[in-house]
Every structure is written in structure tokens, then in C-alpha cells.
């Protein structure tokens, strides 16, 4: 555990050293956030609510989804793939540490730094620019905090599995792009799942994607009743555990195929 925290801290600090990249990312996220919020306001066209979603809720949705882009690495995360391609995975496998936990610690450190520098800052900016909805009670804030942490874990387990594709193909980036693009649609990142037809929502419920973003949004906006909230959180935890276990089997098979390039 000490080791886990140490790696987490180092990764957090490393992420904070990329100052220019952080600022550039923040500006981009904010720009598109304002754009998306404006489009949503126009689309609502003065209707008070659509499918139970108010204008204020829709704008908050735009802010939240833009805010978690960096935290959840929604546009792709290739660290393990690159380490397999470059062969630096060899050095990691020589360390007496579980490969999954090693990367989990690093990713939590990275995500924590980006949550602060790109998530929190963006939401505060959004609060100044627009009228947004906030959780109404401490219990809702707490539920939101849990949902956010669990979404990070589910997202990590999913990204971990996708990255393992590099064990099978020397050019797995294409597969990765496809896999990550699924996240945008089925997680409720592009549009709140509530606005999609029922059959689509039902389909999504069978995938881990809503556990990455939609749950966080619903809890933040207060659209779930307390029992529903608890159920959603448990479902997130179940997805994390399930995907993590699955990843171990894939990892084991992958290492058997490992060819360390060069040297």
C-alpha cells in the first residue's frame, strides 16, 4: 500500500509538471464546453425541459462532460500500448509488482492531477459563465464523489483492457481508436443518454460505458432517487471488479505472446 501511494504521488507530481499542456488542454475543453452549452441552449429553444432535462441541467451536463475529458482520458490513453511497442514494458515486468496495480496507481495519480487542474477549474469557470445546477444536499455531494471515483476506476479497467490489444497486434492503435470512440456514444458523453430512445438506453445498460460518465451526471443533476443512486453506485463498482478480473485473464494470455522488440 505504501508503494501504491508512492507511485500514485509520483505520477500526480509528474502530471503537474506538464504545465503548458495542461493549460492548452484546459482552454480547449473550456472553449468546446462553451460551444456545446450554447448549442444546447439554442436547441432547447425556450422549452422548459426535454425528457426531464432542463436547460440549466443541459448546460451543467456540457460542463461536466468537458470537465471529465482529461480525468477519464476520454479521447484515448495509449501508455501501455506504447510501452509494449517500444519494449519498455520489459522494465515494468522486471519489477516485483502486479502489472495492473502498478498502472492503476499511476493512473489514479494522473487522474487526480487532471481532476484538479482541468476538471475543477473548468467547472468553476462554467459556474461564472452560465447558470448551472449543483447537488442540493451533502448526501448528494457524497454520492457524486463516490460516483466520480468509481467512474475513474471503471474507465481505467476498460482502458487497461483496450491497451492490452498491443500484445496481439503491432499496430493496435486503430483498434484502440474504435474502442475509445464507443465510449463517447454509449457513455452519455456526446448526449445525455436520457435524450436517446428507450431501446438505445436499454442497450447501453448492458455495457460498462454508462458507469463511466452517465452515472456521474445523473447523480450530479439529481435525477436519481436515493435507492436508484445506491443501485447505480453498486453497478459501477460491479463493472470495475468485473472488468478488472477479465483484464487479468487477457493480461496473462498477452504476456505469453509477448515479444520484446529490439535489444
Amino acid at each position: 500500500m505504501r508503494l501504491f501511494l508512492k507511485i500514485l504521488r509520483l505520477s500526480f507530481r509528474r502530471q503537474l509538471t506538464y504545465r503548458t499542456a495542461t493549460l492548452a488542454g484546459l482552454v480547449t475543453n473550456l472553449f468546446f464546453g462553451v460551444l456545446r452549452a450554447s448549442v444546447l441552449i439554442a436547441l432547447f429553444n425556450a422549452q422548459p425541459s426535454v425528457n426531464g432535462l432542463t436547460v440549466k441541467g443541459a448546460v451543467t451536463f456540457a460542463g461536466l462532460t468537458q470537465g471529465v475529458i482529461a480525468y477519464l482520458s476520454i479521447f484515448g490513453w495509449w501508455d501501455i500500448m506504447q510501452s509494449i511497442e517500444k519494449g519498455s514494458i520489459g522494465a515494468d515486468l522486471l519489477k516485483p509488482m502486479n502489472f495492473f496495480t502498478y498502472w492503476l496507481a499511476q493512473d489514479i495519480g494522473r487522474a487526480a492531477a487532471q481532476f484538479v487542474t482541468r476538471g475543477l477549474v473548468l467547472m468553476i469557470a462554467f459556474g461564472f459563465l452560465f447558470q448551472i445546477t449543483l447537488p442540493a444536499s451533502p448526501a448528494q455531494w457524497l454520492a457524486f464523489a463516490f460516483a466520480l471515483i468509481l467512474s475513474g476506476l471503471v474507465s481505467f479497467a476498460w482502458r487497461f483492457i483496450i491497451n492490452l490489444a498491443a500484445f496481439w497486434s503491432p499496430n493496435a492503435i486503430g483498434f484502440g481508436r474504435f474502442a475509445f470512440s464507443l465510449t463517447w456514444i454509449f457513455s452519455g458523453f456526446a448526449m445525455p443518454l436520457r435524450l436517446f430512445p428507450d431501446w438505445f438506453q436499454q442497450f447501453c445498460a448492458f455495457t460498462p460505458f454508462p458507469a463511466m460518465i452517465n452515472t456521474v451526471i445523473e447523480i450530479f443533476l439529481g435525477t436519481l432517487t436515493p435507492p436508484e443512486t445506491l443501485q447505480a453506485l453498486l453497478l459501477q463498482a460491479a463493472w470495475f471488479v468485473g472488468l478488472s478480473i477479465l483484464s487479468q485473464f487477457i493480461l496473462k494470455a498477452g504476456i505469453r505472446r509477448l515479444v520484446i522488440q529490439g535489444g
Partner: protein
Amino acid sequence: MNAIIKVEHLSKTFEITQSQKGWSGALRGLIKPLKKKIAAVKEVSFELKPGELVGYLGPNGAGKSTTLKMLTGLLVPTSGVVQVNGLVPWRDRTKYVASIGAVFGQRTTLWWDLPVQESFDLIQYMYRIPDKRYRHNMDLFRDILGLDPFINTPVRSLSLGQRMRADLCAALLHDPKLLFLDEPTIGLDVVAKDKIRQFIKHVNEERKTTIILTTHDLQDVEKLCERVIIIDHGQLLFDGTLEALNNRFGGQRTLQVDFAETYPDVSIEGAGLISHEGLQATYQFDRDILSASDLISRLSNRYKISDLSVREPAIEDTIRRIYVDKLLEN
């Protein structure tokens, strides 16, 4: 004593996909890729006793690194048995790697963007090295390897020689019983090479660490290893002492003679005359047929000699002959 490393009929076959010519080839490749099997290591067997320092040699692509990667648990063998310290490296990987140290000269095992000292601190946590032990080793290695000038520099800014020294230190902080070194002196200057060699020798002698070393620098072998294992095309060609290697394949010694007077014919029985020019002549002779002193006395009985020198066959020549002339292949 019991063997610390046991390798039996170890083989590793890689499958590579070949690209085919033209459009039709590319299409065919999509449906049924053309696979080619490459045997990197074939039926290699050997054992190592605790405390040995063995040179593992072979030309490029011989299968040295592949063997080492199997021994360190990075690659899973296609067939055969590897047992190190009573463990199967790839199966018990996390437990196993805690008991070994490894340096792959071509790449670092440290963290690219961390200062050297922080990398070491992280290693202390990873290997759960007790504070006292860690500080003791740290002080010692800082001293012998001269790490102080760059101990706070990020790993990515180190020179090759500095990086190699930092990597060696990192591999030994947890007192491994076994050390795997894959080309630890590659690309280093003479002074740096010498420093690394002294350190390796120190570790082997003082700490009784068992070491396997691959290298292309035969001076490493001459200065460090008593025993060598040679492989080529994935097959084991030789396993024995350096001396035995020299005796068997050392080829011929040479004797250079400066005569006091010119002689028209200086040939002598038992040795071949390679060159004869003016006052100087060079002979080649086989240690099994004729000793150096016999040859010299034969010569001095017949001619007046002003100076002479005997040259032993260089290990370079021996190894080159084994690689190029395929002396060991049946």
C-alpha cells in the same frame, strides 16, 4: 553444490507475419497471413552453480538476449525447462523477479523522468528493502560507482555511462542472489568499461552473486569470466572454461624472431614460417606439437638470435574463428 540455474532443452520459437507482394498479396495477407516461424533458441541446456560468473557469447541474433529474457521471466519458453532458485521465472514472475537483478544495456529499468535518487527510493519500496540494508548498499554503491555527481539528475538527462552505472546500482540494491547483465558495457568508452568491469568483479567476489553476462566485448570475457557458453543460431556450441576454449580452438601461437645475421633459409621443423624479411621472421606453431622453449632452442641451435617474442592467440581470433569458420558446428 546444487545448481542455482537449471536450463533443459530450452527452446523459443517466434512467429512473424510476412508481408506479401502486391495488391493480391496484401489481400491474401488479410485473409490468411503468411506466417513464418523463427527458432531463436533451440534445445539449449546448461546449469550454473551459485557464485559463478559466466560469459554468454554469440554473434548478433544468436539468441543470447532471448535466453536472458526467458531466464528473467519476461518471455515464456516455447518448450523446455527453466528453473532458477527453485522457481519457474515466467510462472512465478512477481515473486521471482524480487530475487534477481537485471541490467539490459540497451534500455534502462529506471524511470525516465525521475531523478536517479528518487528512482532508487522507489526501488526500495518495491523490493521492500529494510532501511538499514538500503542505506548501507546505497552508500557503498555511490562510492564504488561514483554516482554522486548525477544522483539528482533525471534519468533521461544522463550520459550512457552514467545511466549504466545507475542501472547497475538499481539492480543490486536489494542484494539479489543472481544478476543478469545483457551487454553492460555496450557503447561505453574505455575508462567507463573498466569501471563497470571492476564493479562486476567486485560484486561477484565480495557478494558471491551469481552472474550471467552477455557481451560482444571479449575483453569483458577475458577480464571477468572463467567459464563461457557460446551459442549461435540458437544452438549451444560450447560450454566450458575459457582456458579449455583456447586450448581446443585457440589455433596457433606465433613466435617472432630477430636474427643477428641474415640467413637465406630459416625454415624449421615443427613450425610454419609465415614471413621472412631481412633479419625478421615469424613462425606459427601448435602448442600440442611443440612447446615454445623447444622451438626457441631449436632455432638458437642453428641461428644467432638477437631478440624474440611469443604471442598467445587472442580470444578475439578464437571467437571469430568459431563464429566465422563454424568450428563447432557438426
